[in-house]
């Protein structure tokens, strides 16, 4: 038995959940699983039929590796594996809000490009011919007159917000929008651009909370 526990077995209403550590060596994981089932957890294995859900965490497992895990569990007669799943896309949608927010101050002038992995807050203007490219959201505390590309790596839930939204072009994920051919903003209020059914939409910043998973909710009086 190794000194660190790589496998946690939890009892839930539907049966058992096997939480497998996603950082350790795969062979060590198999060994521990075998040990737990055969030696240390005899009591769970003697009862009636139990449904089992296996959670792999962020580990990327091949089909053979999954099969190896299933084999060990199936060897115990009363365990029935219902599902085996990994947390897919964990890398693609981390830090929705404050994570990796970069703060910049200055004017992005014609011919200048800023590239950032994450979300970007620019205090200053983006002039025509200037470019902002970001894997996450773009917030401009100033006038956006140049080009902005949010969710560059494919995040369609990325947004572009600016105090003054007068871009030469907007891009979110794969969608390219060309104002004023496609939309005209006459409002001087702060606005943001987002994707709705693969179409670029513009709305007032006060409507942003509708697109966010966890807006602030005030409770009580």
């Amino acid at each position: 038995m190794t000194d660190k526990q790589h496998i946690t077995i939890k009892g839930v209403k539907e049966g058992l959940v096997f939480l497998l550590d996603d950082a350790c060596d795969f062979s060590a994981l198999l060994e521990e699983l075998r040990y737990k089932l055969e030696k240390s957890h005899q009591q769970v294995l003697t009862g009636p039929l139990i449904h089992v859900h296996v959670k792999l965490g962020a580990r990327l497992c091949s089909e053979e590796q999954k099969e190896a895990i299933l084999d060990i569990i199936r060897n115990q007669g009363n365990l029935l594996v219902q599902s085996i799943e990994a947390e897919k896309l964990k890398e693609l949608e981390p830090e929705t809000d404050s994570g990796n927010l970069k703060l910049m101050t200055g004017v992005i002038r014609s011919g200048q490009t800023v590239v950032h992995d994450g979300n970007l807050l620019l205090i200053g203007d983006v002039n025509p011919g200037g470019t902002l490219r970001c894997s996450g959201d773009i917030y401009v505390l100033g006038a956006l007159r140049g080009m902005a590309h949010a969710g560059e790596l494919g995040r369609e839930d990325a947004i572009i917000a600016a105090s003054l939204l007068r871009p030469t072009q907007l891009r979110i994920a794969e969608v390219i929008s060309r104002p004023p051919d496609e939309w005209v903003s006459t409002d001087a209020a702060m606005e943001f651009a987002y994707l709705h059914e693969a179409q670029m939409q513009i709305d007032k910043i006060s409507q942003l909370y509708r697109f966010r998973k966890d807006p602030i909710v005030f409770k009580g009086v």
Partner: protein
Amino acid sequence: MGEAIVVTSGKGGVGKTTTSANLGTALALTGKKVCMVDTDIGLRNLDVVMGLENRIIYDLVDVAEGRCRLNQALVKDKRFDELYMLPAAQTKDKHDVTPEQVRDIVLELKKDYDYVIIDCPAGIEQGFRNAVAGADRAIVITTPENAAVRDADRVIGLLEQSQLTAKLVINRIRPGMIKSGEMLDIDEICQVLAVDLLGIVPDDEKVIKAANTGEPTVMDPSSRAAIAYRNIARRILGDMVPLMPLDEKSGVFKRFRRFLGIG
């Protein structure tokens, strides 16, 4: 030790050479010792605008390559004793001098002159880098046109990269067109470019006439552009001069014409 000011714009034809010639002359007019340097090698113009074309013996490239001493290449102005010009070569091109050579020449000139005005070629390539190399500060010229403002923005960005603060001059303004909304207005341009405004120059036919006769506009105080250039020169010297009122002035002018019975 004097100060070197580069006059640049990115876009061509917005009035770099005209501005250089007029600012140089206006500064000389206030009694300063001024040298103008034309770095537009291959397409030199400053000598023509100043009316000094026929006095050129050596040029910038000759100095850079050591064919003559710096003082031999300087051309003295016909109007002022303390105004000189270093002409560009017409038979070479921008790649025949390096930014280091220009920097050394400008440094040498700064020892003897209060102001060194560097006339920059259009574009952002070698010629631009040459012109900017020795400068202490920069004047960016633009006109109230989108294309010129875009290029000015690009150039300001490049100047910032070389740690030069740029001040803006908006040239060829037509108050009537701004009023009717056909031309970008001054506030709009300043908002986009986000640099200090050094001056505005109204569009004036006398400037074209003056350039063709080789007599800088500033010499003619009846021209509104001349007053604008003199104001800019005073701001360079550190005076607080209010911006020229575009409408009011024409109002006075109209009233004067009405007084004479022709308006």
